């Protein structure tokens, strides 16, 4: 079971489903996609790429479409609007009780016609558009799902029934709610509160309301009659709310209690929740907020539990909450000034389906935006806001938003100022620094300043931002809009789930993971993916999703995989290869909506007795089981070997098509289902007859197109690919060892190749992590597991000398020392070639033995070769040679190791002067706390920029470092006993190795991912994966996670040993081929090669994505895509154009 349908949860679910397990994915909201569904643009490409996470091979299992519209996989059951009620059992065998909020709209019947939306009397602030637009209580959950199915917001729905009356497909079943029998007891000493609550809840809400003016009276009421929900004021004369809560629960244990509180006693209300209160309401009330909250509570209490499911492992991917600035000590004008918005809200303003339609205008007065300010770290890195942590993603999304705003302005020919107020610009991702450079080049201004306040000006509506620069000087600037880059907060719902599962949270309230793991929680069989362990960007969330899936998969495998879905026996389909096409066409009458317009006889007539058309009929109620059964029976009785069905959208789902295909013993490719229902427009007053004729024409065109497609569809069975049973892992560091173990634990062989004479890589010199986790122990443990694993063969002192083959079947020659080479066969390869510390010539490196690197310092600490007591003064320079061309990337780990070492010295010898010269402290996520601790311990941090780079001179008595101190704005000189340079990570040279497997490296020598965000461990070449710091700079835990993700991808590939290859792949008709090789140039996936010996163009079916670029580059269709044969396509176009 995966809890949470954001990208990390989806990745985990897809990986497990592709591995062959059955997955239940539950999501509280009415749509999947999580936060990402609200982002139209994701850096570094600034486009949306969520569909790139879909598996490719065996693509027929997945609805290949926009993931923001929904996800469909035959091994995944998705429960929306569902939460976990209780969990019992243990790892390998959990029993989970869910509670599923009923959706009054039947998803199998809703056709997204939109008739219900205008009749709905309820206006709600659309949560998808961050509440900035009004929508109705019924409608699509996100704008991308306009085609349905719709959902009803039952908390605001008044059950008026108007939508039900207009629904043409009878899809709406409003629940029979018996609110009258739900008794709410309102306890407050103020008459006015009692009266107004009685009125709202009783008359508008429809509940039974009783009241009491004191705690004592309330207890009397409770003795008299059962109460379902009590609303109790905290501050009352006599018995206070807290005491009442305790006593009331003694009388009626099952009763739900919500505390009523003034703003001043919110803290008390929060602590009341620990004593059994379900929630609290803050006075004064807004009935528009209050009623939905009570309705939600009503539903939670009254919706019966179910279904109950049995699962082997649980992946929590519940995400985080968003900090609400209005609740903080400094709200920066949020919710007071309309033009102060949060980052997620601004994200919607950039969207074409957002509140401003993507135009850059102010919400308050529609004035074009010309000056926008971003305020970073709102609710993050703020001890006052109890957030001694960084939220990880806000710097990058703010830079992205500034770029998008610049771009939108450029398109309008306007000038726009985009200013980012920041503390440290944390661009620690692989291409983050380059992205920042590009944003700055395009006009984003990054100002290192702390924002003090935002004030709105009454006449102009301008915002005045007061901010202090590093020297303490206060500056004032005017803007049209301020965007608050709000931070993360632990999710209360995740905490609730964690408690249910008995897993540990960290002191901040996020899920705690075990040492060196990003996904293993303290509970066996319970994994955490994505932001619930601290906010992740997309690529990290995807890696964590795969890593969590990996652990779940390994656990299920170790348990014998008893819950693994056994592949269904191959479907027996009729062999119709030698028959001429005979198409059975059926059109569903759709309760009269279609049957009144479509005329089967006229349609047959239009086809001029086409001999391949064996039957044109109308059918009824294809939305029901009975309707389908009758239809499939009719098809079986006929001589047809192709089927076209005209119906409505729900029937077009791939699983329905597959079911029909099974019932009539035909390949799904020979069946086409067309959505005719949505072609019927709303009835027109003006010329109904003309409209009817037009609609009939349209239907005929769609049907003819479908007939053309199936008529010429290829009835051949899909080809199969067979894959090797083992994986080659190159590199024996922690990533390589983890990957090899991961594959081997799944029962596949692993060849682990290491060029050095022993395994371990960088672990061999590392001492401990900043958290104090023992690296030597990890190294020993992992190495002994690898060495003793029966499925792993280790080759040390060995290199890869050459390789042949392709994804699924490689043959690679290895060479140990100077001995003769030998070959191994393997289905996949994982490159864990790692990297090491970069060298630099700057800052006097190499001129003096007192100028060392972080690695040398770490080794000296490990060897007990450094006595902190003897250090008078130590200086560190960070980003020595990195984050500027040619090594223009952040190495991600050096700030943490600098903090680790600075604290080590400072805490052992508080007298020592420790100076850290930095550009931006990349103390991302929870590392922030160590930054705070270092400052408290007296480590002195001095920021520099590439322009004010420190100067180093080694002298007899000390190494002298001159730098400009930004606070004092003066030059300072530090005399240090030791100067430690953080020179960053440099990947091991693996370009030619990657290329020999058909993959590649980027300009800095790191492995080039297939897609940096959505496929972060794969390459465009099938069966080639990468992990560890050869992939990108990473901490040990991050390297482990990427190794687990890579191992899982390899396991998925190997698991498909005898499954059919995807059918929609390109082919070559050799007799027509002139060998011009245009198709090879056109193929972006490297799937085509020219075999010189055979003089033929060869397509690798695993690498081909069926995009059709080759077919369009080929002048005579010698290259074509299966399922899109040229004659078939022409005939479909003919049908579309010639009517």
């Amino acid at each position, binding site marked *: 079971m995966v809890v949470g349908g954001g990208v990390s949860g989806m990745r985990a679910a897809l990986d497990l489903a592709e591995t062959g397990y059955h997955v239940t994915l539950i999501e509280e909201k009415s749509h999947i996609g999580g936060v990402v569904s609200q982002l139209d643009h994701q850096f570094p490409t*600034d486009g949306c790429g969520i569909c790139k996470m879909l598996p490719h091979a065996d693509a027929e299992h997945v609805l290949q479409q926009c993931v923001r519209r929904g996800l469909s996989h035959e091994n995944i059951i998705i429960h929306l609007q569902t939460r976990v009620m209780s969990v019992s059992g243990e790892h390998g065998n959990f029993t989970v009780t869910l509670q599923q909020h009923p959706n009054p709209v039947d998803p199998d019947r809703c056709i997204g016609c939109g008739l219900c939306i205008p009749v709905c009397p309820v206006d709600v602030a659309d949560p998808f558009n961050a509440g900035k637009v009004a929508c109705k209580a019924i409608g699509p959950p996100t704008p991308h799902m306009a085609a349905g199915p719709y959902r009803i917001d039952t908390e605001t729905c008044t059950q008026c029934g108007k939508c039900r009356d207009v629904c043409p497909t009878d899809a709406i079943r409003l629940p029979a709610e018996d609110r009258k029998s739900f008794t709410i007891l309102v306890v407050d000493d103020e008459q006015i509160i009692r009266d107004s609550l009685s009125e709202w809840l009783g008359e508008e809400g429809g509940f039974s309301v009783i009241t009491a003016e004191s705690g004592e009276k309330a207890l009397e009421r409770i003795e008299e009659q059962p109460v379902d929900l009590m609303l109790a004021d905290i501050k009352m004369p006599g018995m206070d709310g807290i005491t009442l809560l305790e006593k009331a629960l003694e009388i009626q244990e099952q009763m739900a209690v919500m505390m009523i509180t003034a703003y001043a006693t919110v803290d008390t209300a929060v602590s009341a929740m620990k004593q059994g209160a379900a929630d609290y309401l803050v006075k004064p009330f807004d009935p528009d907020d209050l009623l939905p909250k009570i309705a939600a509570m009503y539903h939670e209490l009254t919706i019966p539990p179910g279904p109950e499911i049995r699962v082997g492992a649980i992946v929590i991917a519940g995400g985080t909450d968003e900090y609400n600035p209005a609740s903080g000590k400094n709200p920066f004008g949020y919710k007071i000034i309309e033009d102060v918005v949060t980052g997620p809200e601004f994200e919607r303003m950039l969207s074409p389906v957002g509140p401003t339609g993507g135009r850059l205008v102010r919400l308050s007065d529609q004035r074009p935006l010309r000056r926008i300010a971003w305020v970073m770290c709102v609710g993050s890195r703020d001890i006052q806001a109890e957030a001694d942590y960084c939220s990880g993603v806000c710097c990058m999304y703010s830079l992205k938003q500034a770029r998008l705003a610049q771009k939108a302005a450029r398109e309008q020919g306007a000038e726009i100022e985009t200013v980012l107020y920041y503390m440290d610009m944390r661009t620690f991702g692989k291409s983050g620094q380059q992205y920042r450079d590009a944003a700055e080049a395009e006009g984003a201004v990054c100002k290192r300043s702390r924002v003090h306040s935002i004030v709105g000006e009454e006449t102009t509506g301008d915002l005045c931002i007061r901010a202090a620069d590093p020297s303490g000087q206060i500056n004032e600037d005017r803007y049209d809009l301020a965007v608050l880059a709000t931070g993360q907060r632990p999710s209360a719902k995740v905490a609730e789930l964690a408690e249910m599962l008995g897993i540990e949270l960290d002191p901040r309230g996020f899920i705690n993971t075990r040492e060196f793991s990003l996904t293993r929680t303290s509970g066996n069989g319970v994994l955490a993916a994505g932001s619930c362990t601290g906010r992740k960007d997309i690529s990290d969330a995807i890696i964590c999703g795969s890593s969590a899936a990996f652990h779940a998969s390994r656990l299920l495998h170790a348990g014998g995989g008893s819950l693994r879905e056994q592949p269904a026996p191959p479907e027996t389909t009729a062999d119709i290869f030698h028959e001429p096409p005979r198409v059975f066409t059926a059109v569903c009458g759709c309760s009269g909506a279609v049957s009144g317009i479509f005329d089967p006889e006229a349609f047959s007539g239009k086809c*001029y007795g086409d001999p391949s058309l064996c039957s044109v009929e109308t059918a009824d109620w294809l939305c029901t089981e009975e309707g389908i059964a009758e239809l499939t029976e009719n098809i079986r009785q006929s001589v047809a070997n192709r089927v076209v069905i005209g119906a409505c959208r729900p029937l077009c789902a791939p699983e329905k098509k597959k079911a029909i295909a099974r019932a009539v013993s035909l390949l799904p490719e020979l069946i086409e289902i067309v959505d005719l229902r949505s072609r019927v427009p709303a009835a027109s007053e003006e010329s109904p007859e003309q409209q009817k004729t037009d609609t009939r024409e349209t239907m005929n065109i769609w049907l003819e197109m479908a007939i053309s497609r199936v008529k010429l569809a290829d009835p051949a069975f899909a080809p199969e690919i067979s894959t090797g049973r083992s994986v080659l892992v190159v590199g024996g560091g922690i990533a390589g060892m983890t990957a090899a173990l991961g594959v081997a634990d799944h029962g596949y062989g692993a060849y682990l190749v290491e060029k050095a004479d022993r395994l371990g890589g960088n672990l061999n010199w590392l001492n401990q992590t900043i958290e104090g986790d023992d690296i030597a122990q990890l190294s020993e443990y992992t190495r002994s597991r690898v060495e003793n694993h029966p499925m792993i063969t280790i080759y040390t002192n060995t290199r890869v000398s050459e390789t042949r083959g392709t994804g699924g079947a490689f043959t690679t020659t290895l060479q140990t020392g100077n001995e003769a080479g030998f070959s191994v066969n393997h289905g996949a390869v994982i490159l864990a070639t790692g990297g090491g510390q970069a060298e630099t010539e700057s800052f006097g490196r190499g001129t003096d033995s007192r100028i060392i690197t972080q690695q040398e310092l770490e080794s000296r600490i490990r060897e007990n070769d450094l006595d902190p007591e003897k250090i008078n003064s130590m200086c560190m320079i960070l980003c020595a040679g990195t984050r500027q061309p040619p090594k223009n990337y952040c190495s991600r780990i050096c700030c943490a190791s600098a903090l680790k070492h600075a604290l080590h010295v400072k805490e052992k010898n508080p007298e020592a002067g420790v100076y850290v010269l930095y550009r931006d402290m990349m103390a991302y996520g929870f590392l922030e706390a160590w930054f705070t601790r270092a400052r408290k311990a007296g480590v002195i941090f001095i920021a520099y920029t590439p322009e004010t780079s420190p100067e180093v001179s080694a002298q007899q008595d000390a190494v002298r470092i001159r730098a400009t101190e930004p606070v004092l704005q003066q030059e300072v000189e530090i005399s240090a006993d030791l100067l430690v340079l953080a020179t960053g990570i440099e990947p091991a040279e693996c370009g030619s190795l990657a290329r020999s497997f058909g993959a590649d490296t980027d300009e800095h020598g790191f492995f080039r991912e297939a897609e940096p965000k959505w496929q972060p461990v794969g390459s465009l070449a099938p069966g080639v994966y990468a992990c560890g710091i050869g992939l990108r700079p990473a901490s040990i835990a991050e390297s482990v996670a990427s190794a687990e993700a890579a191992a899982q991808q390899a396991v998925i590939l190997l698991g498909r040993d005898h499954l059919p290859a995807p059918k929609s792949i390109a082919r070559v008709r050799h007799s027509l081929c002139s060998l*011009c090789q245009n198709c090879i140039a056109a193929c972006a996936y490297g799937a085509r090669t020219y075999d010189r010996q055979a003089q033929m163009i060869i397509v690798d079916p695993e690498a081909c994505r069926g995009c059709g670029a080759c077919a369009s580059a080929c002048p005579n269709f*010698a290259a074509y895509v299966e399922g899109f044969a040229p004659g078939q396509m022409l005939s479909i176009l003919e049908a579309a154009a010639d009517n």
Partner: protein
Amino acid sequence: MSRTADINIKDNHIGETIGQFLKKILESDEVAAVLTPHRPAEKDMIMPRFITDPEHLQGAEPLSPAFAVNSARLVSRLTRQSPGGTIAALLRPCEIRAFVELVKLNQGSTENLIIIGTDCPGALQNADFFAFAEKHGDKATARFLETAFSDDQASAEDLQIAPACRACTQPTPEGADLAIGLFGLQPGPKIQVYAQTERGEVLLEKLGLEEAQADEKHQSAAEDLISRRSQARQEMIEQTRAATDTMEKLADYFSRCINCYNCRTACPVCYCRECVFATDVFDHEPVQYMKWAGRRGSVKMPTDTLFFHLTRMAHISTACVGCGQCANVCPSNIPLAELFISVAEQTQSAFSYQAGKSIDEQPPLAVFQEDEFQEIVGIENGS
């Protein structure tokens, strides 16, 4: 400055002089065979001939007024794999350009090839050549060259050279290893040979011809001719556009087409092994004709004529070198060269590409540029 040599003209006969030059090349050790236009004794047709015996060069017509076939395709057939010896091919500039396109499409190779190109005054269309040959008999070629290189512009232009040639702005043999210069030197006592590649240098050196200075008159005469041709080309393009600027006019333009596919066969860059129009894709079921007619009441037969030409245009307009062979072979006299040259001009300028110009430049469809034609593909940079 690349190596240049003078060749003195024997008996006032340029063709024979060049023939002798080819013989010299064939007799050297450098070359195993020569491809050249050739006129069998007592016959009226001039066709390419592949010659290994120097004696058979008797009858070579290196500056033929007839242009029955664009030899680029023949050279591609001779070179797509190793032919077992070096071939010297005497080609017109448009034949060289077409061959360069074919090399880029992997249909031929320059590896075992020496291209000898000549300045080209143009050629007669087949029908005109037959009449011309009839009238002048044995003297036809001499007469043609005399007029073509005449100082008297009016009489040179009287010669009815093909429309494609009249609009040709690349009459000098760019891309040849050895270029034979005629413009500005004829009429006169000599012609010049220029080595344009390293391979040409080596060959010219081995032939032992004395080095000479390049005659400036050649360059300036070529430039004059090109500027006159450019003007004619612009006029032709404008007229053609006016005649085809609506779908209806375009259909009229092709209304005489009989689907003989001669233009496709004659086109040097139409390189498919089998044309898609000859495959089952266009093998319509009879009921399809019934549907077509049924929907509008009637349908013009044969069908797919306009479709055929538009498809060909889509396929070859980036590679069209303007040789005019399509028009040369059309039995219905459709002015194909004019239209294809006009369309190719537009397509190639859109991609800043010139067909046949450089062997190293990738064909536009083999190159993907993200920022290209954003307004058409709807993809913006970086998204």
